[in-house]
């Protein structure tokens, strides 16, 4: 692996599109998303398609450094989802439904982002039946403990 690539791989976890302020209802302008995923994980592709069908435009990037991307983005390890997206200056980790992302943009809280930990069955892009409500957590900027952002 070249040194250049090494440097690229370790510095790519910079939120994309930090100045964007997407709003609900402007369907003509798809909201850009950069989604980092494990190269072998297929359900993340399913989630990317789900976003593409709901007013977003997803740039899918495979990486073997997903844990680093997630860690550098500020997601606590025990709340990690299986992929990490950067949308409009926020981190959106895991299979978060679009209504929760819209709530994030509508309320514009001063947080790092939101996460749906793990890979709950029946969540967008995932196989299986939804058997329980999903709890999505807000990750603070100041290191205070995560709090519940949304339950859907």
């Amino acid at each position, binding site marked *: *692996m*070249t040194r250049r690539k090494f440097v690229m791989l370790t510095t790519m976890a910079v939120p994309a599109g930090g100045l964007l302020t997407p709003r609900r209802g402007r369907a003509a302008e798809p909201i850009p998303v950069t989604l980092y995923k494990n190269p072998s*994980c*297929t359900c993340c592709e399913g989630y990317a398609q789900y976003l593409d069908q709901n007013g977003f435009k997803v740039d899918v990037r495979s990486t*073997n450094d997903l*844990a680093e991307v997630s860690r550098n983005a500020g997601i606590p*390890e025990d709340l990690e989802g299986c992929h990490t997206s950067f949308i409009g200056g926020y981190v959106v980790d895991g299979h978060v439904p679009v209504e929760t992302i819209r709530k994030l943009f509508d309320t514009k809280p001063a947080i790092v982002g939101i996460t749906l930990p793990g*890979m709950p069955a029946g969540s967008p892009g995932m196989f299986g039946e939804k058997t329980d409500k999903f709890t999505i957590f807000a990750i603070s900027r100041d290191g205070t403990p995560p709090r519940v952002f949304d339950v859907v």
Partner: protein
Amino acid sequence: MVGDDAPDTAVWAYNRTIPGPVLRLRQGMPLRAAVTNGLAESTTVHWHGIRLPNAMDGVPGLTQLPIPPGGRFDYAFTPPDAGTFWYHSHDDSLVQMGRGLAGALIVEEADPPQVDRDLLWTLQDWRLEADAQLAPGFFNRMEIAMDGRVGNTVTINGRLPETLHVRAGERIRLRLLNAAIARIMALRFEGHRPVIVALDGQPCAPHEPPDGRILLGPAMRADVMLDMQGEPGRRYRVVDDFYGRLSYTLVRIAYDPAPPLRAHPLDALLRLPANPLSRPDLASAVVHEVRLQGGMMGGMGGGGMGGMMGMASGAAWAINGMSMTGDGSAGMPPLFRVDRGRSCILDFRNETAWWHPMHLHGHSFSVLDRDGAAVPHDEWGDTVLVRPRERVRVAFVADNPGDWMLHCHVMEHQVGGLMTTIHVS
């Protein structure tokens, strides 16, 4: 590690080098290794692929007591087989191997094949930060249930490789050792036709790999014969394209402008002399199903996230429904017991969405078939790479008494439950 202009990378090392010193000895000669533990935690050394007495196998709690900090353990055995083997820590293996504790063990044939050069590439994979130090975050829950801690920097013999200088016409025996903790490699030698002559140290019928791609899971070795038939003065790439779009150039081969060493490739035989292995009797063999379960998208436990969501033990993986985690425990019953001398078939059924290099200690096995299709070229090994959802059968003579580990060599899969033992009485 990554160049003279970068800071040194802090590692854990055998004899102050990464990889550890290359141990070379002639087939039939005894090996003695006095291991003194300078770490702040216990350790052991496993002699991977060597068919040795159980007490020398280096598995803490199973074949020996762990070597405490400041302690010493003397290993002594006589490798029966010639070939490319290796040694590594088997205690806190994810961290100890991940920080560098591995090295090659080369057993030379009494009558080695005729080559111009015998080269070894010990390939290691590191996850480095911008300051060239190892990234934290071993035992990441997500990675345990995916494909482990794959890094961002692959080294050859402990250095970020630059160029392999060759002379046109020469024949190189290249010993490839994947000593990474998680990275699977698929190596292509642009403009060349490598011929595989041994896998995991055991000779096979010389053959070119399918599509010219040498597939090596963690812990696997391949001895390849490379006839350097490129153009003098030209450069060629060695590419690893296992992860598709994440393919990269591992190293470049640079030809000396001098005219070829010889007009035609050597016509010396490529086939290596056989090792003293017993061939299993398939008709009378006992068959044991080994179902590999769990991981993300695997449906074990809840939520498609392996057993992570519900299992108190933290196991993400299982073999036939049982999870042996961490470094293993002597308390868990063996997967099966088999009488010494009996032929045995392991019928691996990968029920997961992930690749697993499955390693059996103390024996070498014949790889029989994949999804029912016979495996050609008389392929043997101690580690077999099982594809997602694939069924692979291997066979061996259980001729080495003792308790032997059988586990996935993606270190995070091993500590996450993809591990068991067999007992040969």
